[in-house]
């Protein structure tokens, strides 16, 4: 099988992941709901992962995919801990709006 990128082009993947990444940023800025913010972060992570895989193919090298593998592990851990924190915050203050999470205010 020939290289798939010959038919699609790496630039399209780059465009796609850039757009996805921007959507993620947009989501973080736009939404106040911490869960949605989390989801936006996941979108950003996936945008990057996608790019990794695309370039892995481009370079004919498995390293990129290995990296994605690890990034998934990290994302899983992060989500687990992050959601646990959210839950406990929700229990404490009854809201998960990030406007209420200003304990770091100087």
């Amino acid at each position: 099988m020939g290289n798939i990128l010959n038919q699609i082009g790496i630039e399209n993947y780059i465009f796609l992941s850039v757009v996805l990444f921007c959507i993620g940023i947009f989501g973080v800025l736009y939404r106040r709901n911490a869960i949605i913010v989390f989801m936006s972060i996941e979108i950003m992570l996936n945008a990057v992962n996608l790019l990794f895989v695309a370039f892995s193919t481009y370079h004919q090298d498995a390293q990129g995919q290995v990296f994605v593998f690890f990034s998934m592990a990290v994302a899983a851990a992060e989500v687990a801990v992050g959601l646990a924190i959210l839950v406990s915050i929700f229990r404490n203050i009854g809201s998960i709006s990030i406007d209420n999470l200003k304990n770091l205010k100087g």
Partner: protein
Amino acid sequence: MIHIPDFAHATTIQVIFCFLAFITVITAFLTIFSRNPIHSAIYLVICFFSIAGHYLLLNSQFLAVVHIIVYSGAIMILFLFTIMLMNLNEQREVHRPRITRLGAIVSFCLILIVLIAIFINSKPIVGEYDSTGEDFQSIKVLGKILLDEYMVPFEFASILLLVAMIGTVLLSKKEKLNK
């Protein structure tokens, strides 16, 4: 120049790609814009599935499967559980100042423009793609690399997950102790 797919003479793969990309972007947007978190989560699942489709398209089956398992299977379920646990099915975000929206839109546009500008600027790097036909992304190869070259990080990843698990348990448990 940006390579614009020619829809009239598009190959199957190109069509599939365009379709998947469309779904990905749309669902990502919907994730963000839908008022109900549950809907968001469901859109996100679709988004993840489409990304897994991309992986398949790129011929990395292993990753696609892992992606579906981890993201759609584990993470999203976690999200859903959490949303349900918090009873977040109705919209709670009342106040959303205009400045926030403006900021969000500005950053979105800005980063998009910058990134694309960079990409266009560095276009010459993108050249023809050659294939040696060498197998580099089958499960067999990946497994070898993971357990050979990346043995230690791999183990660390497991430790990380373990720690995250313990941390999560502790985080949830402590509240009960306090109350």
